[in-house]
């Protein structure tokens, strides 16, 4: 690495060489995060189809394979789907606003990928170890809504517009509950940095994870995450039965696929954040020898996969919510629960030291 840095300094001079070197290394790190992420998205769609198929006593995709290997049947499906999406024509409706129509998918995928910058994958592996990581995530996820609104408006179609309106109202409502749930997490960890949040859950076993003192917040965050990503049972923004496919009804080919990629990478993001904030991130469940030898990255992946399974399970199990019930759940149930929990947490934190030492509060505070 130092040799390459020296080469940069030789070419661009002492002042600019270091800057260009850090830009180049950051680009490499970004690629190292985004490429596995997009592969993960591809195979998440495969996992979704397979898991839902087995839940409904079907087989799911079982044809496309690599080099004719029989036991890999179905594993080539996401790759085939990607190739198909790239080959298809992007149809732009005549009445659409061309510039915004093309801009909308870009605005959707941008925050979905940018949010990954502050995610720590193990104690050292993090692209940007910033102090305000949690706030950055909130800011980025709140920007994802622009793509949906613009897509709905630029398509110049009533179905798309209705889908965009529904989605905007839903995301803005659930963001509040989500934000308040995160306030509880940062009250526990007393830091906005994700590394510090995971280190705050360090202990002998999984009893130290924030899952237990913040269990209602875990549920609120997970369900709000499902609503925030417009997934079933909160997918009224798409609502095939009423408004065809919602905001992306007029999109085809790769433009549609970009929306699809953003939705799935947002799902993985919510799963990652849940496992970092409530399930101890890279920490093993019990701090004993065979489990601590497994690298932290593997534990994080296992936890992400566990939460993602919930997402797929919800989709296979629950019927779609009615729109007014979604709003009621967000505003009248989740926000009061989170507000009450913030007050309770604050009261516990203000208890005198001697009272807090009494079991079981002392392992978390």
């Amino acid at each position: 690495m130092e040799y390459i840095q020296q080469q940069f300094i030789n070419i661009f001079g002492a002042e600019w060489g270091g800057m260009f070197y850090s830009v180049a290394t950051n680009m490499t790190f970004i690629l190292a995060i985004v490429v596995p992420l997009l592969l993960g998205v591809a195979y998440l769609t495969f996992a979704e189809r397979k898991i839902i198929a087995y839940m409904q006593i079907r087989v799911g995709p079982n044809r496309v394979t690599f080099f004719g290997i029989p036991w890999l049947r179905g594993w080539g499906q996401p790759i085939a789907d990607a190739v198909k999406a790239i080959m298809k024509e992007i149809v732009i409706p005549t009445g659409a606003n061309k510039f915004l129509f093309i801009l909308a998918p870009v605005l959707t995928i941008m925050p979905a990928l940018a949010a990954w910058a502050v995610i720590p994958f193990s104690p050292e592996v993090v692209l940007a170890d910033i102090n305000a990581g949690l706030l950055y995530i909130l800011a980025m996820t709140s920007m994802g809504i622009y793509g949906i609104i613009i897509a709905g408006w630029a398509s110049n179609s009533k179905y798309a517009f209705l889908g965009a309106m529904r989605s905007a109202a839903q995301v803005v409502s659930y963001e509040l509950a989500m934000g308040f749930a995160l306030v509880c997490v940062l009250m526990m960890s007393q830091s906005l940095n994700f590394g510090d949040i995971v280190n705050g859950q360090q202990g002998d076993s999984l009893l130290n994870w924030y899952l237990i003192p913040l269990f209602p917040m875990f549920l609120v965050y997970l369900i709000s995450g499902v609503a925030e990503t417009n997934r079933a049972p909160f997918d009224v923004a798409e609502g095939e039965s009423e408004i065809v496919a919602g905001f992306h009804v007029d999109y085809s080919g790769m433009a549609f696929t970009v929306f699809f990629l953003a939705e799935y990478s947002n799902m993985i993001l919510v799963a990652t954040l849940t496992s970092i904030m409530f399930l101890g991130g890279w920490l093993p469940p019990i701090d004993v020898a065979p489990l601590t030898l497994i690298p932290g990255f593997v534990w994080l992946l296992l936890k992400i996969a566990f939460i993602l399974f919930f997402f797929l399970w919800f989709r296979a199990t629950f019927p779609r919510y009615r729109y007014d019930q979604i709003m009621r759940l967000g505003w009248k149930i989740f926000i009061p629960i989170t507000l009450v929990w913030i007050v309770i947490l604050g009261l516990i934190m203000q208890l005198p030291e001697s009272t807090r030492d009494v079991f079981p509060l002392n392992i978390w505070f």
Partner: protein
Amino acid sequence: MNFQDVIFYIFSAILVASALGVITVRNPVYSALLLVLAFVTCAGLWLLLEAEFLAIALVLVYVGAVMVLFLFVVMMLDINLDRLREGFWKWFPFGALIALAMVIEISMVLMNKYFGLEEMPTPKPHEADYSNTRELGRLIYTEYAYAFELAAVLLLVAMVAAIALTLRHREDKKSPNPSEQVKVRKEDRIRIVTMPSEKKD
């Protein structure tokens, strides 16, 4: 000129261009989107000034919430551009006065030689583990606690007022009550009657 200066000039150019666009573009949706761009580049400039909390709060509050609702409304309105331009000359002197005040303020900063601002020391860069958010939180909740509470109460009053102004109870409204719907049991709706089966003849 170093790397930070280059970034500063790029961001400032985008900021000025998009701010100009907000007031000159004819399509109100475009101008709302340009305002979003202006906010985001402004947040970038604040990051260069080591004000990361303010920068992220700007994106979170204005871009993530306020402008979304703004765009929401602008897209649904059928805005008549001619009516929008009607009062231009009537309000022009007022706007010009505000613009003049802003020009004077900016020139006081830029031409600091004539206003004695050069005695102000340049702020020292902070060390790496300095947390902007933590310092801001400490100040708000200790020294400026009363001002902060006052601002919060003001916001609360505005919120209550907005709801009170728009809330209308209609008597003839037919809407289901979800909690009552959920509470319904089988016995409330159906009556199971047992009767002997009929003979076929």
